């Protein structure tokens, strides 16, 4: 499996994702600079976390219009899976590949801690290895993670079963207390119509070994490998 990780100025989780993918696939992914118009042939494209372009104007807004994104959008529309984590999720919404937008956290604070997530479905490219986990623990680290979309869009996402993860408590209740950032319906991640594009605020790549606090992020990368290898 050949993966490409897009590196923007001030991406800071690009190498973490590279380590995770390397660990699971045994192959080093391509690191693709944002200014490159050429994107190598890839089975998976990852938009990593960070603070691309200093989060100027709006988080992800400038990265979404950088030269390499034309190629990413083209490939995504041709069916190449795209995974956007944290800032990568913001880039996906800003580029129109996923609906909605990530607003400033409702509490206005940067949140950096481990959170629990429900696995809403275990039949996608990214979740097939989560059959035994209904609740996982992974970290978040964001200031703008408050998922917002209008009523019609939220209804559509729910009706189409396109919510990937919700913030929940340890028992798996997606309660308002567990909703760390004010996201509508506790949404922590969503799929596009084909479920080949996933955007999520939490960081699975930071939970891939017991030394890091757990390995609940590993099945996400294993799922991709199982499906695409």
């Amino acid at each position, binding site marked *: 499996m050949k993966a490409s990780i897009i590196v923007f100025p001030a991406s800071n989780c690009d190498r973490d994702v590279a380590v995770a993918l390397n660990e699971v696939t045994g192959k080093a992914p391509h690191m693709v600079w944002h200014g490159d118009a050429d994107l190598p042939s890839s089975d998976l494209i990852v938009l990593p976390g960070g603070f691309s372009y200093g989060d100027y*104007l709006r988080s992800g807004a400038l990265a979404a*219009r950088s030269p390499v994104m034309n190629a990413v959008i083209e490939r995504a529309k041709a069916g190449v899976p795209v995974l956007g984590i944290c800032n990568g999720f913001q880039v996906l919404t800003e580029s129109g590949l996923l609906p909605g937008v990530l*607003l400033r956290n*409702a509490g*206005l604070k940067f949140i950096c801690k481990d959170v629990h997530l429900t696995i809403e479905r275990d039949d996608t490219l990214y979740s097939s290895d989560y059959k035994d986990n209904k609740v996982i623990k992974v970290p978040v680290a964001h200031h703008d993670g408050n998922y917002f979309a209008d009523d019609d869009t939220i209804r559509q996402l729910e009706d189409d079963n396109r919510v990937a993860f919700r913030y929940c408590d340890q028992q798996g209740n997606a309660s308002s207390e567990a909703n760390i950032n*004010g996201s509508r319906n506790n949404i922590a991640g969503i799929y596009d119509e084909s479920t080949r594009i996933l955007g999520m605020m939490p960081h699975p790549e930071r939970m891939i070994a017991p030394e890091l606090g757990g390995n609940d992020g590993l099945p996400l990368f294993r799922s991709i490998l199982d499906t695409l290898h």
Partner: protein
Amino acid sequence: MKARIHVTLKQGVLDPQGKAISHTLEALGFEGVEKVRQGNFIEIELTETDEQRAGEQVEQMCQKLLANMVIENYDFKLVS
């Protein structure tokens, strides 16, 4: 020619920053603050001298980058 652009949140979109500003204004003793909405102000200097063409250009800039039409509205003025 200059374009002066205001980008503001649409009605119905929660604005926690506006709320925090409103609370602080209250704490400072300013009475009668009913609601605060925060937005962006952007000033662009253009080489275009024709008002209509400049207007069309700025319109495109707003829609393609300066405003996120999911949550924001924009309006602008051209000044020579």
